[in-house]
């Protein structure tokens, strides 16, 4: 959960990734495929921005009235025969899940993909009480074998190529498997089939929870979630408290946005809506169904004008695929359960203790690709800045950087001082300028100049040359055309009417 739990700092973890050519190639390959897929799917569907706006409106409305919709959902789910539990913290959620497993004397749990389960580190907890947890999503299965955590919200094993995967699976098979995706997937399918049949509990995540009917909805491609929710006698669903949407009508919008944004699919291969345990007339399904609604820091965002929109996230992973930083360092460098831009904001935001936030919020160039990719328009790039500000304002900023910024505002807070600084730079640079460029790797230039040559300052700054330039311009300035004058006046007029240009 907390980035502190991971080893080292972001910089150190990023360093590992940057030196791992396999990882970088694998991540680039798949994120490119996904983001191109998304672009095509969104374009084909048309009016994408209107759909995003609609999705955002639904999420904003639901989160603004979360108490109401959560209550409605719980009442309806209970009426359907579901046992609903609330967990304030991750530890509470684990305790509830374990007590169900103990009561059922469970030996094995088959799981479909759930990021909440990863957030709770539930597999480890189950193993401690002697219950075997088996991940059945192919990607999750692979990283479970490797003893790793997911490095992507949607594609957990994105950092592995098929040769590495073939090695892992060959160990399980006891024979050398061909690094062919059909062979490997076929092997896992066969292997897992036995486990589905013998499992005592099926555990799922939850993509959306429908308040009006008390149903939980799962999007998946492998059919494993169908098996998890139909074969075992007991089902436990882990659900973040913000997964709610009001109605099935709203699901239409989410079903339009989620698969397209995640993988570029029009719809995932399977979409299941489950409203309760098996009824007497049903052929299959669990006899007992539990939903554990997890808070674990989410409610801290409610009422916070800067972070409440974080709860709008539908976990599609589009921001990871679009992120140029994620592209180079992969997910593990973020050090938390959630990676990429959403992880860089979510991990610190869910964690109350600002002093312990590490540097993940700094691992972004603030390019805004995440915001542009987000199907519900969460301004992640702004939130990253707010996180940085909160850390500074609580006195946990980097001391050296703080002193630097003080110097910056003192020197640039006044035009005369700014002019003096530039002047001093023009003179002082003579010590380091060679051939019109600065190549020294001393002091703050070390990192920058390890990849670049810094340009030198020209003899005169713009302001030093302004009078000369201005005189030249005035000397033969043309009269502006009436048409352009009119256009300028129109532009000024539009401002008053709320038109004009706006921040994207």
């Amino acid at each position, binding site marked *: 959960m907390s980035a502190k739990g991971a080893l080292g700092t972001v910089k150190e973890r990023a360093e590992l990734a940057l030196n791992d050519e396999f990882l970088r190639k694998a991540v680039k390959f798949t994120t490119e495929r996904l983001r191109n897929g998304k672009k095509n799917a969104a374009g084909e569907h048309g009016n994408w921005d209107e759909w995003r706006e609609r999705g955002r409106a639904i999420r904003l409305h639901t989160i603004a009235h979360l108490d109401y919709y959560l209550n409605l959902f719980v009442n309806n789910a209970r009426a359907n025969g579901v046992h609903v539990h609330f967990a304030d913290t991750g530890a509470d959620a684990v305790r509830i899940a374990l007590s169900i497993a103990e009561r059922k004397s469970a030996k094995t749990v088959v799981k479909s993909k759930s990021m909440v389960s990863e957030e709770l580190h539930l597999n480890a907890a189950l193993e401690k009480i002697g219950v075997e947890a088996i991940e059945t999503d192919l990607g999750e299965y692979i990283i479970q074998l490797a003893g790793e955590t997911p490095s992507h919200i949607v594609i957990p094993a994105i950092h592995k190529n098929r040769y590495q995967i073939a090695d892992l699976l060959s160990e399980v098979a006891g024979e050398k498997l061909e690094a062919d995706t059909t062979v490997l997937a076929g092997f896992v399918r066969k292997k897992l089939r036995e486990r589905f049949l013998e499992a005592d509990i099926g555990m799922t995540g939850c993509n959306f929870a429908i308040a009006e009917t008390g149903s939980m909805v799962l999007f998946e491609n492998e059919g494993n979630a169908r098996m998890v929710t139909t074969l075992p006698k007991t089902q436990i669903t882990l659900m973040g408290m913000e997964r709610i949407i009001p109605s099935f009508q709203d699901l239409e919008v989410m079903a339009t946005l989620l698969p397209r944004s995640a993988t570029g699919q029009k719809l995932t291969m399977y979409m299941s809506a489950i409203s309760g345990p098996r009824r007497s007339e049903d052929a299959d399904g669990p006899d007992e169904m539990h939903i554990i609604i997890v808070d674990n820091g989410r409610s801290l965002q409610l009422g916070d004008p800067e972070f409440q929109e974080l709860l709008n996230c539908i976990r599609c992973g589009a921001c990871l695929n679009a992120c140029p930083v994620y592209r180079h360092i992969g997910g593990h460098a973020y050090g938390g359960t959630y990676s990429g831009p959403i992880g860089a904001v979510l991990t610190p935001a869910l964690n109350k203790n600002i002093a312990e936030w590490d540097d993940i919020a700094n691992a972004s160039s603030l390019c805004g*690709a995440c915001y542009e990719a987000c199907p519900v328009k969460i301004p992640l790039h702004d939130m990253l800045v707010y996180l940085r500000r909160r850390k500074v304002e609580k006195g946990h900023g980097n001391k050296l950087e703080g002193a630097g910024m003080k110097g910056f505002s003192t020197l640039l807070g006044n035009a005369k001082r700014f002019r003096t600084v530039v002047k001093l730079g023009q003179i002082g640079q003579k010590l380091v300028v060679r051939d019109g460029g600065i190549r020294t790797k001393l002091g703050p230039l070390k*990192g920058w100049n390890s990849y670049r040559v810094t340009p030198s300052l020209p003899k*005169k*700054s713009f302001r030093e040359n302004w009078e000369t330039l201005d005189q030249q*311009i005035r000397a033969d300035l*043309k009269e502006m055309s009436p048409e352009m004058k009119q256009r300028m006046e129109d*532009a000024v007029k539009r401002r008053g009417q709320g038109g004009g240009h706006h921040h994207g």
Partner: protein
Amino acid sequence: MTNPPVGAKKRLQNMSDNLIIRLYYFDIIAIEVQCVMKVSLFITCLSDAIFPRVGEAMVRVLAKYGVQLEFPKVQTCCGQPAFNSGYWDDARETAKTILNAFEDSDFVISPSGSCTGMIHHYPKLFENDPVNKARAEKLQQKAYEFTQFLVQVLGVTDVGAVFPHKVTYHPSCHGSRLLGVKDEPMALLQSVKGLEFVPLPFAEDCCGFGGTFAVKMADISGAMVSEKVDHVKETEAEVLVGLDMACLMNIAGNLRYRNEPVRVMHLAELLAEGAKLA
């Protein structure tokens, strides 16, 4: 037609330095009050100190259309380095120089989508200071990136430039994503005669600058700029053009580090040179 009474004309002229009064006498007196627009240059600290040639190019291109830029010297930096790093008190100190500089301007034009974008953050930066927040909101309405002003406001797409070179374009993130400046530079480039445009692969990917990010996360930033330059090389372009000197300094720095002879220019420079205004 008779001449307007001298006293009345004078009084009206004295109402404001910015008013030109034209009095037409027909059957009745019609008074047309026309404002002379104050168009100001927001040079940005980077172009001021390191790339004055970009500011000059902008001034010359706009002068071609009769726009006489004025340059308030109290401006320094928009405050973005401090703002993005979380030091908002410090950011406000330099941001105030921008608020002061452009108080009476009708248009504020800068050669950077990122610094113009920063002005769009001012209402948030001054959210607990109602006086400056109101000033910030006014300024936000008046702030334009260079091509935004040239294309959207003046309606110019062809400045009459000739530039017979192979050119590629890097769309800077803040300009394209936060201000939505996407079509304007393309329209301007398309009108340049002799110019052979080659699209940049993965053009929309950040160059890795990100202000203090390039210093704090130097190796991630280095990986990003190295990949950007790989893509620039793939195009075999002679010239890389853009709208933000911070990004261009970053990319040019890596090109030079690798001894790649690609020329890096702000679009204003290309237009000024192509139209022989430089």
